[in-house]
């Protein structure tokens, strides 16, 4: 029974990793941009929430009402004002610029908020639990995160395949030159994609901040988890990303069960095994977006 509980914890943790990864996967899919600053943007969202919570006295979950639009607007401006200029035939400039952005974000947060470890308190939600049959109990908040991850990915899928905005994302992803010939302004489309990605990052950042301690330096580790989830699941496949997050979460939970020091390592090992055995991911991309 203890093992069942461990696996359930792992699955639920995987929901958070899937939220970390979804935005990363979306912008790679639409504009082939590998965003090294993705983890720091998650941490930025956490700090924006912290500022909103302490400034306005809002509940952390309620702060999403402000954090999501703020991050989405920041994403639009970031893409339109900076990252669009790095895109082209060469993949190096976006890597270098987002790497630089990562360092800048980390240091700006350090300057403003100091290196102190922070946590958002959600009024007992973080310790509440649900009783399951068989004497098991799961945390209410981890369940909430997992359900949110499923909902976010389902909404993203619906948006991509059923709406005009989704069609333009897919068209641009497929062939940028032809998309322009069809009257599509790529710069605007890329900026919208980054806005959607950072709206998802906002959700991920706030959930992370309620679930664990954070400080300005934790971004790169979130980036690694996000990359691992995306690659295990197969690039460009949102449900695969959820599965990738779950596999990563379960591996970490089992590793931690065996020996608390092995939690992170176990996740990395499983990732490396997948990379060796199925380099294109377990659920190889059926299609680009």
């Amino acid at each position, binding site marked *: 029974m203890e093992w069942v509980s461990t696996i359930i914890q792992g699955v639920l943790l995987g929901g958070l990793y899937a939220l970390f990864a979804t935005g990363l996967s979306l912008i790679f899919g639409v504009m082939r941009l590998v965003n090294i600053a993705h983890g720091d943007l998650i941490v930025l969202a956490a700090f924006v929430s912290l500022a909103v919570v302490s400034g306005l006295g809002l509940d952390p979950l309620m702060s999403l009402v402000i954090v999501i639009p703020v991050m989405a607007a920041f994403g639009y401006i970031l893409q339109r004002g900076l990252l669009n200029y790095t895109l082209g035939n060469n993949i190096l400039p976006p890597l270098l610029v987002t790497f630089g952005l990562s360092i800048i974000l980390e240091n700006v947060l350090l300057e403003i908020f100091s290196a102190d470890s922070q946590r958002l308190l959600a009024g007992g939600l973080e310790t509440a639990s649900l009783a399951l049959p068989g004497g098991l109990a799961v945390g209410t908040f981890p369940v909430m995160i997992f359900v949110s991850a499923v909902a976010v990915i389902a909404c993203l899928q619906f948006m991509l395949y059923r709406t*005009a905005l989704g*069609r*333009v994302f*897919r*068209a641009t992803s*497929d*062939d940028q*030159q*032809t*998309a*322009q*010939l*069809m*009257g*599509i*302004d*790529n710069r605007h489309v890329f900026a919208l994609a980054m806005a959607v990605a950072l709206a998802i990052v906002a959700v991920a950042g706030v959930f992370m901040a309620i679930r664990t301690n954070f400080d300005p330096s934790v971004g790169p580790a979130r980036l690694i988890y996000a990359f691992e989830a995306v690659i295990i699941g197969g690039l460009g496949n949102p449900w695969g990303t959820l599965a990738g997050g779950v596999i990563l979460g379960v591996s970490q939970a089992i590793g931690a069960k065996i020996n608390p020091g092995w939690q992170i390592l176990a996740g990395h090992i499983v990732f490396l095994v997948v990379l060796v055995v199925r380099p294109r991911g377990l659920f190889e991309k059926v*299609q*680009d*977006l």
Partner: protein
Amino acid sequence: MPLLSLQGVCKSFGSLTVVDQLSMHLDEGEALGIIGPNGAGKTTIFNIITGDLQADAGSVAFDGAEVSGLAPHKRCRSGIGRTYQIPHPFAKMSVFENLLVGAVHGNGERERDAYGHCVDILERTHLTGKANAAAGSLTLLERKRLELARALATKPKMLLLDEIGGGLSEQECQDLIGTIKDIHAGGMSIIWIEHIVHALLSVAERLMVINFGCKLDDGDPQTVMANPDVRQVYMGISAE
């Protein structure tokens, strides 16, 4: 005033001059055919008109406005529709979705309002049966029809057709000519680059011959085809 007018357009790639001081025009409702040997600069002219390439010198005016400095998506919205020689469908999207993207972004329609007009275009381009097929699964003829349909979805004032007959069988080519004739009969202004001269002559009211980026002749198709210089340059090459 002509619908499209190019004045003194030049384009070089490094030391290779591809378009040299070219001036040309297209009148409203006219069908202009362009022929010329491979590498004469025909596709480059289209790329300069659509904005895929910037000219080194000269001007491009369309529908009464200078468009030389505009980005490709703005030129599309101003009414320039184009098909590629090698079809570039959005392969993972359905045929209908391909058209919707053109209608929504090229013509500024809301999706719901675009449905009827897209269904209509599918009908005219004989793609109705393929509306829900993935564009990547189409045959070459169907892909060429999709190029045409998607360009029409943007509600262009002018269509640029780049060797749309190339690679098709004689029968397929005849089918496509029928479709193009219908579209032209509806009032569409067309510039068509084609190596298949008889196909071109069945639609074009005026013929222009390009060689080494320069205009060799321009005028009534029969007169142009009778020009000894044209016969030497064009027939000479095609007889090889």
